[in-house]
């Protein structure tokens, strides 16, 4: 199958990611320290203060999914005793370790110097790093971020996180890196973050235009790349989001849609969708085409909020450096309770004038998936717009049934048509 045709910003990002993999795999030559950490609640600005390179295991699993390597890795992990029932990111990671731990640049991943367990929004994270810790025998720094069970954070939660940052995480990173913490360096990184965040939000909100100049799911996963990974807080990220904004602005000016997987502009947008849940990575292109072929563009998605809900107003704040890190961790999408997630999705349907909510429910991921059926019903009830439910997996190709997904999507689009007819008749 051919590759996805890339927009200029995608190429820029590709180069940035390659550079980061190079920094990781060359740690023995450069002497730089490497951390492993997760996307939601990642503390990239803090790592920058210690010159620590950031390696994100979910991103490696995604890379392996897109390069069709994850299926075998997962099966290897299952053969060695990992349950078929648990998150396939974990198994793809463990299977990759067993197969020589080769990075996408073809060089072996070095052992991390620290596992920074920023524990936000997903139970699996805790066990994933307990499992890796057995293997790597390196220091593990746990930052426990309480869940917003009542739909908001509290002072106690924030104080608890700040205390952990001061007394566990920062001293731990100082020890690993041999570099003393400099709060002004952190402030500078945070200022950089906020600039990039402004542009990211602008891009994500451009989905309100008609036609939408972006696809906020299939394109969105690229748009969030730098800010959700190793680049938040860097001038690189600022440059990337400047370039991305210019690219999107040009499409708005010419009333063009986003680039489809085969490189044409997607202008014939018949359905505007809000999507909840992560995408499937093993059949990413095929999956995307099922939407674009039918004229369905995604105007907003929750997955682009797992690494921070900037569109709700949050920006990293250099004036309150540790508190802002706490607020960031607390506010990531899956750390918000279900009623809040319903509110967010219903708001997206209204504000982005979408035709409905599509849920891609991921077999692996209880953090996202447990409760999604109810969420769909609630959003339908509140917005009057139809919802639909498909089931796939992140990186396990065994759980991607193209025929099933396609059928479901087709009937969903028919349902939207009928709804439109009904509304037109009633008017």
């Amino acid at each position: 199958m051919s590759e996805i045709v890339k927009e200029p910003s995608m190429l820029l990002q590709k180069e940035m990611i390659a550079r980061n993999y190079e920094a990781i795999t060359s740690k023995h030559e450069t002497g730089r320290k490497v951390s492993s950490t997760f996307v939601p609640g990642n503390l990239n600005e803090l790592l920058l203060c210690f010159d620590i390179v950031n390696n994100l295991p979910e991103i490696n699993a995604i890379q392996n999914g897109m390069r069709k390597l994850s299926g075998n890795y997962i099966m290897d992990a299952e053969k060695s005793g990992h349950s078929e029932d648990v998150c396939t990111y974990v198994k793809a990671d463990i299977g990759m370790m067993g197969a020589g731990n080769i990075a996408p640049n073809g060089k072996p991943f070095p052992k991390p110097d620290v596992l920074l367990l920023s524990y936000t929004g997903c139970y699996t994270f805790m066990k994933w790093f307990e499992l890796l810790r057995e293997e790597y025998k390196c220091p593990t720094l746990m930052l426990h971020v309480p869940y917003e069970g009542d739909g908001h954070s509290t002072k106690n939660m924030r104080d608890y996180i700040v205390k952990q940052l001061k007394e566990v995480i920062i001293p731990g990173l100082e020890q690993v890196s041999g570099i003393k913490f400099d709060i002004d360096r952190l402030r500078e990184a945070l200022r950089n973050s906020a600039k990039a965040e402004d542009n990211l939000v602008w891009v994500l909100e451009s989905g309100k235009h008609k036609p939408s100049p972006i696809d906020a799911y299939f394109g969105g996963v690229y748009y969030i790349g730098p800010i959700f990974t190793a680049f938040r807080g860097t001038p690189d990220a600022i440059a990337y989001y400047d370039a991305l904004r210019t690219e999107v602005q040009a499409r708005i000016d010419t009333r063009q849609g986003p680039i489809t997987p085969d490189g044409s502009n997607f202008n014939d947008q018949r359905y505007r969708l809000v999507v909840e849940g992560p995408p499937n990575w093993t059949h990413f292109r095929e999956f995307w085409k099922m939407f674009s072929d039918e004229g369905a563009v995604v105007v907003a998605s929750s997955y682009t909020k797992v690494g921070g809900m900037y569109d709700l107003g949050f920006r990293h704040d250099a004036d309150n450096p540790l508190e802002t890190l706490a607020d960031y961790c607390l506010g990531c999408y899956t750390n918000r309770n279900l009623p809040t997630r319903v509110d967010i999705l219903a708001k997206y349907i209204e504000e982005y004038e979408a035709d409905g909510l599509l849920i891609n429910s991921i077999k692996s991921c209880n953090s996202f998936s447990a409760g999604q059926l109810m969420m769909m019903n609630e959003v339908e009830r509140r917005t009057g717009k139809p919802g639909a439910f498909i089931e796939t997996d992140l990186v396990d190709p065994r759980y991607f049934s193209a025929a099933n997904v396609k059928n479901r999507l087709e009937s969903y689009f028919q349902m939207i048509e009928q709804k439109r007819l009904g509304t037109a008749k009633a008017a």
Partner: protein
Amino acid sequence: MTTTAEIVSRCEAIFEDLDFTAARAWKDAVPGRKVVGFLPLYAPLELIHAAGCLPLGLFGGGDKLEVIHGDAFYQSYICRIPRSTVELGMTKRLDFVDGMIFPFVCDVIRNLSGMWKIMFPNVWTKFFDTPQNFDPEIGGSYYVAELQEMRDGLETLTGRKVSDDDLRRSIALYNENRRLVRQLYTFRARQPWKAPTSEVYLLMRAGLMIDVAEHNALLVRYMAAAEKEDRPKRDNVRVAIYGSFCEQPPLNLIKSIEMAGCYVVEDDYILVNRFLTEDVALDIDPLEALATAYIAHSVETSCKYVPREGEKGKFHVDQIRKAGAEGVIYATPSFCDPALLDRPMICKKLTEEGIPHISFKYAENSGQMQPVREQAGTFADSIKLWS
């Protein structure tokens, strides 16, 4: 009630009653009483009790409940307990429950707390996040404030203050309860033929559905009766069960393991009343005391982070040695992230320690016991053969 059979039959009746008649009767006995349900894995019952409420343990619907509505809420790859809990709610079996506590164990129960808020807006619903940092100054002080928040919530629910003395009185009762439970577990480990696990289990389950003082009295009577009764000792092997802390296996499965030639001398079924391993102090601030007990004296289980790698699974090994178990059955609910993600780590530790182990999965409504019996039987035989 003087015989174990009588006590166990009372407990079984409470356990099987999905209309919660005993809890309803407790509530109706005095106007204004409130019932607060809680799910696995651990909630500080002392606080609920001190607020004058009955803490009601909700551990799913078992194999007797027909789940109709609940299945429409969950995909096939999610465990059973949330769907049967939803079923209990939607069929109005929990309509007398005034508050619900969803303790942290995994993302399924975490998300269920939000669903409950949407489905039952008139019920006080609290997600209860215990700390994963075990420094008294950090995790401990966070926990004290969380306990205070829960206390405030309970005060609003009941309209009455929960004083420190109220709390100390409740802590004392629960200390007594924990002491008796530990005593019973020690008794079973010494003479498992006198206290079969199917009976101990029912005593534990019923205990979380009735008032603690009543449970304490039942425990005392059961142990006295069990000591006196003469029951045949079989040539069974001694095993520990792990992985069964949340969704519960059907009673038949618990019995099947025993029938297959295993004496269960240690387990993590419904850990609530064994979660704290020592008395909670009575001579300091009660919230501090509860926090300290959690931080310094609680079990290792899958919902807790283990800060030091070398410690992982150590608790299990120590318990196994203490109980004199010869092998471990790691029995987990299907699709249970906590138990299944922990399994390779715990089993690796067991292998390193030379402790034989097997594992299998179940669901609360599993019907087929033959495979379990065969697996447990073969395991027992292999232990006998090689030990």
